[in-house]
C-alpha cells in the first residue's frame, strides 16, 4: 500500500503538496445480552484521506473506495483552490525515523468468533453463578494497518491490534460494570469478576445529605473529567485561539505541586502509542506540567510554526488545520494505596464513575455531574453505596489543591491516570 500512497503523493505534486493516509481495518465482535447470546459480526473497512496544500491554502477529501483515489485527489485539489488563505504557511513533515513500537499482537489477529465467544461465556457464567443478570457482555478484536506518505517523501506504515472487553451486571437496583482495552491479549475474567463485585457491593443504595466533603475519584471518573476538560486545554490551537483555561499560563504554577503531566506517544504498552502522528511527525514524550507548573503545550506542524516552535508530534487528523490531540496523556502517580487514601477521609464519597462528563464546560472547568457506583466513606471506612448524588465544583480549582494521588495508574483511553482525592467538594442529593 505504501507504493500506492507514494504514487498518489507524486501524482498530486503538479498541483501542490500532498499528504495521503490509508487505514485498513478488520473487526470481529461477539455480544451477549440479557444472559444470552445476541450476535457476532465481522467487518472490513478502508479509509483513504488526501490533503492538498499550497502555501496557506488547503483542501481535504476522504473516500472509502481506494480505487477512486484519482477522484479523491481531484476533489482535494479543487477544494484547496477555493479555500481562503490561512494566516500561516502549512508545512509538511520531513523524512525522519523513529523507534519502532510493538503493538501488534498476532494472537489478537488470529482471534475468531469461537475464541471470543469463549471469553464472553466464561464471564457470563461467573455472573450467573452469583445470581446476577448480565444485560451486556461483549468482546471485540480489531487490527488496523495505517500507512502514510507525503510529497516530502516522508512515509511510514505500521500495524496495531486491540482487544476490548466490557461487562455490565445488574441485581435489582444495583449494577456494576467494568471493561478493559489493550493492544495485547489479557485476562478478561479479571474484569468480569470486578464488575460482579461492584454490582454486589452496590446493593442497598441510600441517599446522602447535601454536604461539602472529600471526593475520591477512581480511574474512570477521574479520567472522564481529564479527557473532557484538562487534556484539550493543552492543545496549542486552543491556546492560540483563547479557547483554553491555560491561555497566558505557560511557566506559571497553577496546579498542585503534586501534579506532573506528560503526553507520551512512545509510551511502552501505551494504548495510543504510535511512531508518527497523522502528518508524519515522530511522536515523543512532552512534559506538560511539572510539579504544578505549566511547561509546554501540544503542537502539530501548523500551530508550531505560528509559535515558532517545533511540532510535538500531536497531529491527530490531516483533515483539519490544525488538528491536535493527545497520545498517551499521563498523570504521574503518587505514593499512596487506595486504602491509605480512604483512611484519611473523615467524611466523603468514593466514586468509580461519573455521569455526564461530556456535558461539562471545558473552558471554565465548571462541572455538575452525577456519581455512579459510589460509596459513602466515614472515618476512613467504606460504608453504604450512594443513591443519586451529584457534585458541583470547578475542576481547575480542584486540581490546585489535590494532595493525595494513588501509586497505581490505569489506562483505558488516551488518559493514563491514578485515583485522586479532592477536598471540600459540593455534593447535592
Amino acid at each position: 500500500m505504501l507504493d500506492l500512497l507514494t504514487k498518489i503523493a507524486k501524482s498530486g505534486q503538479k498541483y501542490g503538496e500532498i499528504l495521503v493516509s490509508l487505514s485498513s481495518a478488520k473487526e470481529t465482535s461477539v455480544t451477549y445480552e440479557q444472559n444470552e447470546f445476541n450476535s457476532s459480526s465481522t467487518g472490513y473497512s478502508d479509509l483513504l484521506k488526501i490533503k492538498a496544500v499550497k502555501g496557506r491554502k488547503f483542501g481535504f477529501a476522504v473516500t472509502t473506495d481506494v480505487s477512486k483515489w484519482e477522484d479523491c485527489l481531484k476533489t482535494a485539489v479543487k477544494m484547496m483552490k477555493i479555500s481562503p488563505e490561512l494566516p500561516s504557511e502549512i508545512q509538511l513533515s520531513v523524512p525522519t525515523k523513529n523507534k519502532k513500537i510493538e503493538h501488534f499482537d498476532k494472537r489478537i489477529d488470529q482471534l475468531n468468533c469461537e475464541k471470543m465467544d469463549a471469553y464472553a461465556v466464561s464471564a457470563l457464567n461467573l455472573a450467573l453463578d452469583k445470581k446476577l443478570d448480565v444485560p451486556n457482555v461483549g468482546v471485540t478484536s480489531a487490527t488496523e494497518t495505517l500507512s502514510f506518505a507525503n510529497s516530502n517523501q516522508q512515509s511510514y506504515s505500521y500495524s496495531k491490534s486491540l482487544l476490548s472487553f466490557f461487562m455490565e451486571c445488574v441485581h435489582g437496583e444495583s449494577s456494576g460494570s467494568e471493561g478493559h482495552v489493550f493492544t495485547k491479549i489479557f485476562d478478561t475474567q479479571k474484569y468480569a469478576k470486578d464488575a460482579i463485585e461492584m454490582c454486589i457491593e452496590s446493593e442497598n443504595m441510600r441517599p446522602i445529605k447535601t454536604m461539602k466533603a472529600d471526593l475520591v475519584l477512581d480511574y474512570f471518573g477521574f479520567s472522564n473529567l481529564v479527557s473532557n476538560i484538562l487534556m484539550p486545554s493543552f492543545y496549542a490551537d486552543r491556546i492560540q485561539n483563547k479557547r483554553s483555561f491555560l491561555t497566558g499560563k505557560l511557566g506559571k504554577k497553577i496546579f498542585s505541586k503534586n501534579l506532573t503531566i506528560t503526553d507520551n506517544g512512545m509510551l511502552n504498552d501505551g494504548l495510543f502509542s504510535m511512531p508518527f502522528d497523522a502528518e508524519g511527525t515522530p511522536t515523543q514524550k512532552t512534559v506538560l506540567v511539572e510539579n504544578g507548573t505549566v511547561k509546554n503545550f501540544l503542537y502539530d506542524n501548523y500551530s508550531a510554526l505560528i509559535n515558532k516552535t517545533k511540532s510535538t508530534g500531536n497531529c491527530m487528523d490531516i483533515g483539519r488545520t490544525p488538528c491536535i490531540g493527545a497520545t498517551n496523556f499521563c498523570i504521574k502517580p503518587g505514593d499512596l494505596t487506595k486504602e491509605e487514601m480512604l483512611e484519611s477521609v473523615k467524611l466523603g464519597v468514593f466514586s468509580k464513575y461519573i455521569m455526564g462528563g461530556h456535558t461539562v464546560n471545558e473552558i471554565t472547568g465548571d462541572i455538575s455531574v452525577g456519581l455512579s457506583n459510589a460509596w459513602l466513606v466515614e472515618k476512613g471506612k467504606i460504608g453504604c453505596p450512594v443513591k443519586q448524588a451529584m457534585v458541583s465544583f470547578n475542576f481547575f480549582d480542584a486540581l490546585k489543591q489535590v494532595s493525595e494521588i494513588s501509586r497505581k495508574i490505569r489506562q483505558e483511553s488516551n488518559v493514563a491516570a491514578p485515583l485522586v482525592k479532592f477536598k471540600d467538594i459540593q455534593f447535592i442529593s
Partner: protein
Amino acid sequence: MDISQKIRKAASQTEYIDVRTLSSDSEEILVENGNLSSLRKEFGFKYGVRAFYKGAWGFSHANDIKKFDSVLRDAIKLAKLNATKVKEEFRLADYPTQKANIKFKGRDPTSVGLEPKLKKIIEISKLLNKKEIENRTVGAAFAKHENSFFNSAGSETTETRYAYNFRSTVVGKKSGQIFRAFERFGKTLGYQDFEKINSRKTAELIHQRLLSNFKSKQAPAGRLPIVIDPRLCGVFFHEAVGHACEADAILEKSSVLAGKLGNRIAPESITLIDTPNIEEENGYYHFDSEGIPSAETVLIKNGILNNFLQSRETASKMHMAPTGNGRAESPEHMPCPRMSNTVLRAGTHSFEEALVGIKLGVYAKGSSGGVVEPTNGNFLFNAQEAFLIQNGKITKPLRDVSFGGNILEVLSKIEIVCKDSQRTFMGGVCGKKGQHVPVGEFCPHIKISEAMVGGDTNA
C-alpha cells in the same frame, strides 16, 4: 450487481437475509476566529449483510462491493454458527414486502458548490467579530445519504436523505471569568433552507446569549422547582424516558420501565409519542434500517406506559408489532431499537402559568448534553442557558445549570404541561451501543415541582 437476486439465491441456506447499502456524500466547513480550520468532502460506499437462522444473526460488512460474495458467505456462516449458541429459538415474524424509492424534498446540498456555503459561514464569523468575543467558531455540515435496503422476502427500498446542520460557539471574558455561548440547529432539508439562514440574526442571537451569560451567577443547588423549555424538555423525554422505552432494554431488564406496561408512570397530562413522520426534523425517515415503514408510536398515553420501541427482533420476541424503530448508524452496525422524533403532546397552560407560585426556582433552556442510566433510571442534563425564578418572575441569568434525578420520581412531579409545542431543530444525534443516529424533538414548556439542580448551596 443484482443484490436482490444474490440474496434470494442464498436464502435457501438460512431463514432470512437482508442487505443495507449506503452511498454517502458529505461536506464540512469550520472557521475559527475567521480562519478556515476544516474544508472537507467525504464520499463513499458501505454495505452490511445480516443473515438469520434459528434465532441467531450473523453479520458482516465491508466497503468493497467486489467482496460481496465472501461477505454474504461470512454472514450466513456466522448465523449458522451462532444458532448453536442460542438457548431459545425465536421466529422472525413476517412483514409485508416493501418497494419504494423516496427522495427527501429540496435541492441536494452536496450538488451545490462549496463557495456559497463557505461565504455564509465566513459572513457569520465576521459578524461575530466583537471586542468581547475572544474566540468564535462557526461551522456547517451537509450530507446526502442514499440508503438502500434489500431482503430475501423481496423488499427493495431506497431513501435519499438530505440534511444540514449549523454550529457556532463563542467564548468571551468578563471580570477575569470565561463564559461561553453556543447555537446549533439542523434539518433534513435541502440546500434551499440553508440559503435562507439570516446571517445577521443568527450572529446576533449568539452574541446576545453571551452577553446574557456575562451577567450570569452560580445557580442555587438543591431540590428546586424547575421550568424547562421545549428543547430541554425534548432532551429530558428523549434521554430519561425514551431510552427506557427501547424494547431491547426492556428485554434485557436493564430498563427502569421493564414490567410496567399498562402501569401509571406519569401524571395524566403526559402523552409521549415517538414518530419519524415530522418532515424536516432530524429524526425524519420513511423506512427504518430493517425496511419497516416509519410509524407513530404512543409510548405514554395519559400517563400510562403504553408501548415500546421495537426492532424486528424485539417485536418477534415480545409478540408485538414492529414499530419501524430498528435503526443503525450505518451498514457497518446492527440495527437495534432507537428513537426518531420525541413528541410530548401539548397541554393547556401558558408559559406564564408555569411560573406562578414559584418562590425560588430555575428556568432552564436548551441543552449542552445529557446522560441517563436506564438500569436504575438516574439521569443528568446540562442546560444551554438558565435563569433564576423568584416569586413567579424570571430574574437573573444563571450559568452551568444541570438538573438530574430519577426518571420515575421526576415524571411524577411534572405539574404543568404548556400549550406552546415547538419544533426544536436541534440537529442532535443519539448515542447507544457505540453508534449514533440523528434524532429530533417536538415539545412544549413543562414545570417540574422538584428536581435536583446542580450549583452552589450558598448561591
